[in-house]
């Protein structure tokens, strides 16, 4: 029998432990440093624009007057994208996870993931060259029949390059993100809970409402927020699709602008205070995204007691 005293330790194993823990600590610190660095850069570079006299800022009425229409434009585009994409994505994810035959499900999941691999400039080109043209008759119809609603007020854009088109293109872009995350979550629903619902005499849809969706709720919210992040920050597709202009209530006229597209379109020729202004716009976008994520976390934590994690 070999005797092992409590004080002898496996030297090599301990060293590996230390290296690993140091490496993870470094990685953790690095990500914080990067985030902090970006924030500092944005604040310093944005500062001149924030304190400049109003007449020096583009538009001549100060930074606030410059930024708020494009903030609203950004939010409108992102909200349109989510309103369209979320129900479709959840439906597709449920179909893949609980309805489709297994072979079809894996194929369909693969195709959805492929959608995420298409570069955004391709989406932009598709939206500008194809979708805008094809969809403009629908805008005319909306203007004629629902024109009394401010958001569908005519005359509709003849080119179809409107904020609604941009929102639709964005919805296609965020669809794979929300779908694949939701699908993973739905597949993780404990069999136990699904069977509990079925054994009570639930139909498949009732089982999904009783067991799958409540279990997946935090995951769905996270997925939607990731999609929202993508929609808020998407630049190229919006820049190509949207024929931008001043803030307009109607979604089917040309006009409106998003922060990301505004920065991308103006940055190459910008100089001096204009650069600071655009970076300040970037800072605003950063703050919006941060706020959205914090709200999402708050929503998720509000129902912690009932999450099933305990």
């Amino acid at each position: 029998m070999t005797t092992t005293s409590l004080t002898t330790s496996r030297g090599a194993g301990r060293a590996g432990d230390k290296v690993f823990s140091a490496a993870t600590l470094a990685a953790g610190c690095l990500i914080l440093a990067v985030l902090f660095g970006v924030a500092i850069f944005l604040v310093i570079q944005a500062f001149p624009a924030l304190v400049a006299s109003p007449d020096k800022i583009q538009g001549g009425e100060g930074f606030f007057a410059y930024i708020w229409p494009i903030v609203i434009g950004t939010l409108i585009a992102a909200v349109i994208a989510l309103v369209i994409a979320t129900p479709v994505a959840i439906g597709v994810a449920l179909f893949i996870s609980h309805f489709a035959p297994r072979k079809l499900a894996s194929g369909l999941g693969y195709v959805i993931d492929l959608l995420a691999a298409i570069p955004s400039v391709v989406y932009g080109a598709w939206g500008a060259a194809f979708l805008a043209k094809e969809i403009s008759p629908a805008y005319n119809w909306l203007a004629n029949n629902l024109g009394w609603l401010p958001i569908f007020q005519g005359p509709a854009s003849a080119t179809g390059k409107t904020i609604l088109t941009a929102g639709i293109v964005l919805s296609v872009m965020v669809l794979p993100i929300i779908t694949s995350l939701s699908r993973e979550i739905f597949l993780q629903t404990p069999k136990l809970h699904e069977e509990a619902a079925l054994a009570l005499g639930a139909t498949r849809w009732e089982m999904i409402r009783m067991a799958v969706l409540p279990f997946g709720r935090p995951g769905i919210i996270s997925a939607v927020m990731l999609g929202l992040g993508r929609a808020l920050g998407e630049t190229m597709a919006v820049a190509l699709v949207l024929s931008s202009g001043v803030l307009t209530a109607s979604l089917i006229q040309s006009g409106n602008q998003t922060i990301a597209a505004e920065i991308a379109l103006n940055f190459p020729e910008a100089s001096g205070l204009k650069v600071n202004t655009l970076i300040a716009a970037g800072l605003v976008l950063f703050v919006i995204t941060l706020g959205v994520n914090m709200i999402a976390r708050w929503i998720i934590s509000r129902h912690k007691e009932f999450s099933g994690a305990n």
Partner: protein
Amino acid sequence: MSKRIDVKDLNVYYSKFLAVADVNINIEAKSVTAFIGPSGCGKSTFLRTLNRMHEVIPGARVEGEVLLDGDNLYGPGVDPVTVRSQIGMVFQRPNPFPTMSIRDNVLAGVKLNNQRISKGEADALVERSLQGANLWNEVKDRLGKPGSGLSGGQQQRLCIARAIAVEPQVILMDEPCSALDPISTLAIEDLINELKDQYTVVIVTHNMQQAARVSDKTAFFNIAGTGKPGRLIEYGDTHTMFSNPTEKATEDYVSGRFG
């Protein structure tokens, strides 16, 4: 309110694999019937065919008849959803819905079967079901709290309350105590004894003392070897099965000589 079950020449398949063969059994109304047998002998599989829960597993199918007071569960036009609302099930591991309160857990099945229920009726039903599951006194002050916060034994009784809230004809229990401590097990066994005044209860158990304590009749399942189908070896009064069984295999099993 309770019905009898008669099974005729039942074979259960997983795709092409015959898992359980030639089961014929008559289960009396308002009685407790225990299924015993070694692991993998198909008793849980067979139990699931009694409310068509085996259909959840891809490829599982049956041949033969299961008659609930003469009506074939597998007859043409019979909806498994209807079958399950009449034949409730309690599982091996307690599975209250984690996102629902205790009250909502009890009402979960009722809300499916008859969509509208007044608050007064719901309160009465929650109390009646929890009383029926011997859980009322322990949870009456925290009906709005999540069911997952209860102890394992309480969760299992909550699941029983949820099952009896829909007033089924039959309650199937798949090793309901295997995840519980002895005291919680005793609570469930007492409850099973009370349940048989109103319901037909069928219970799968690995615990032979439990089968002897709670059941009126016992069915012994066995398997000849790996890859062979499970079969019903012997079925009779629990007392006879444990003291003087007809089959050698039954005697070996209940006396602990194998399995």
